[in-house]
């Protein structure tokens, strides 16, 4: 099953051609990792999937992006609904300056859900799935900014999970965290895979190798190759992939 099918995708920031003729399938309930040097379009590509690039002035997109067979850039497509189905976790933990509870309940509340019981259940369930419940169950009314960086990032994951999305996009989710917090997030991704499709941008090739099922290698806006992680890392089809993975440039 393919959650996303991307065909012939081109993206410009003003005159800058950031993504060139990308064709890619993202499979459901798998972890797909996007690797490549900085500034090569990985994060831009990730933001195509929940239309966060819409927020940047001067962005132009051509091609097809199908989510469950629906074109997400079609005029009748509702970006708000799309974003409830395609959640996102950012590079730097960015909890709202509100309580832990309010952070997780935010997504539901903006959908108009006010039922206390539903909110309570969802908050608890999401925090459990994000492996944070045991640490914060007594601190639900504390300001989220008081949590540690790693806890904040798991809170952001819980916040995304609360909307029961199909896909979770992660943009270098561990780059601002220490190795222990990173380890916890990686474990978490392993368990989330059962319920969600995950796409992750990472600068760490070890991380991509550890956690992903598929790996895509981007270079200067081109998708060089994508395949099962083992194949990409052990016998890449392209010389440039091999050079990057073996550290000959980057």
């Amino acid at each position, binding site marked *: 099953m393919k959650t996303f099918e991307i065909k012939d995708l081109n993206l410009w920031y003003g005159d800058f051609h950031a993504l060139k003729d990308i064709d890619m399938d993202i499979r459901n309930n798998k972890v797909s990792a996007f690797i490549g040097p900085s500034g090569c379009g990985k994060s831009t590509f990730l933001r195509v999937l929940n239309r*966060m690039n819409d927020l940047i002035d001067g962005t132009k997109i051509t091609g097809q992006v199908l989510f469950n067979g629906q074109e997400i850039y079609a005029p009748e497509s509702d970006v*708000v609904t799309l*974003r409830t189905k395609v959640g996102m976790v*950012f590079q730097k933990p960015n*909890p709202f*300056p509100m309580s832990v509870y309010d952070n997780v309940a935010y997504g539901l509340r*903006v*959908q108009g859900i006010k039922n206390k019981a539903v909110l309570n259940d969802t908050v608890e369930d999401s925090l459990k799935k994000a492996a944070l419940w045991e640490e914060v169950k007594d601190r639900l009314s504390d300001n989220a900014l008081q949590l540690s960086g790693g806890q904040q990032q798991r809170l952001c994951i819980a916040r995304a999970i609360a909307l029961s999305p199909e896909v979770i996009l992660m943009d270098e989710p561990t780059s601002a965290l220490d190795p222990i917090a990173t380890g916890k997030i990686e474990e978490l991704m392993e368990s989330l895979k059962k319920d969600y499709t995950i796409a992750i941008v990472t600068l760490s090739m070890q991380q991509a190798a550890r956690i992903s099922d598929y790996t895509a290698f981007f270079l200067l806006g081109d998708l060089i190759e994508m395949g099962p992680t083992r194949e990409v890392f052990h016998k890449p089809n392209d010389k440039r992939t091999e050079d990057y993975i073996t550290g000959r440039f980057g």
Partner: protein
Amino acid sequence: MTRKRRIYDGILNALTYLSSGIAVIILVMVLQFVFVRGWSGVNFDLLSKPYWSGNNTIEFPQFKTGAFDRPDHLGDDIAFSEKLGIGLSDGLDAYKEHQVVVEYLDPESPLHHGVVSTAGVDLGKELGLSEGSNIVNLMLKDTDDKIVNVGAQRKSTAEETVAAMDNISEMRKIYFKTEGGGINGSLKATLYLIGLSLVIALPIGIAAAIYLNEYAKANRVTNAMRSSIELLSGVPSIIFGLMGVSVLFPITQLMGIHTVSIILGALTMAVVLLPLIIRQTEESLKVVPIDLRYASLSLGATQTQTIFKVILPSALPGILTATLLSISRIIGESAALIYTMGTFIADRPRLDQGATTLAVQIWSLMSGEQPNFELSSTISIIILLIVLALNVSVKLISYRINKKWSVS
């Protein structure tokens, strides 16, 4: 070369030291001037006293002398009448005129039970002498059945007045002035003006800032709007006063107000405050991390929900800062208010009538034939203290903002 450079550096350094020294000296001079002149007048009574002293003449239909003991706490300079239970002292009013001041009045004193004897609506109303009043003229019949007049008008000292009182057989009339020279009316008017101006200016200013920062496209129209707001904050406030009289006055006329009024002053001040509030709010909206916007939008919130649920609450400390700065501005404003609220010091200010704020009361006190330096300086001290408190609050709030965002 080295020597030349050293001399050159020395001159420049000396210049900077000198300049900062001059700035500090000027500040100290201003403070010293105000404090030396006005500090003696600073007390809590000032805040509750009216400005205008009342002129009252009272008679005593049932008059009985008593026998009172001099209370121990009265100072040596206070003369005490044992028959009437009253302590008097010599004093000077704001214009250095002699006064006979009531310092103490026994609770049982017969002087509490007078009635107004001047023709008018108050005729026959009960009114007693009160502490702090100045006895201008006191007419009594002494034990020899002779009419005696004493008081400030007759240049009697407190001693002489008390001596006459202790020789009394019948009290005729007391003409006294209640204590004035307070700032109660101006204080109230200032509070009314602050409240009303903020009620008008804050919602409009915040909404405009949200529009400019969140919705407006970066184009010429927006830029023109921004520059005109910038320009507005540089316009001298007397021009706002003129504008208030000519443009806003018809609006208050529609409300049935045909004179200068606090409402007119508040409308004018709202215009003065708008650029300040818009700029400050916009600044505080700008510093809300973009990550929070992305987080909210990525959770399926609309732009409007993002603004009102995440960005605006995060900008609240900044908006509070804008509010405090606005209050400072209102307290310090005078030119725009002289035209729109008038210069008559009202003891009981009303929204639909003219009144003075503290700053304008200073103007009124100083613009008369006999400038009242003492009270003006005292009011200045009070204004300075309020502004100091506001500035400290602003500092505390900005400190908290920085702390809040540095955690994440």
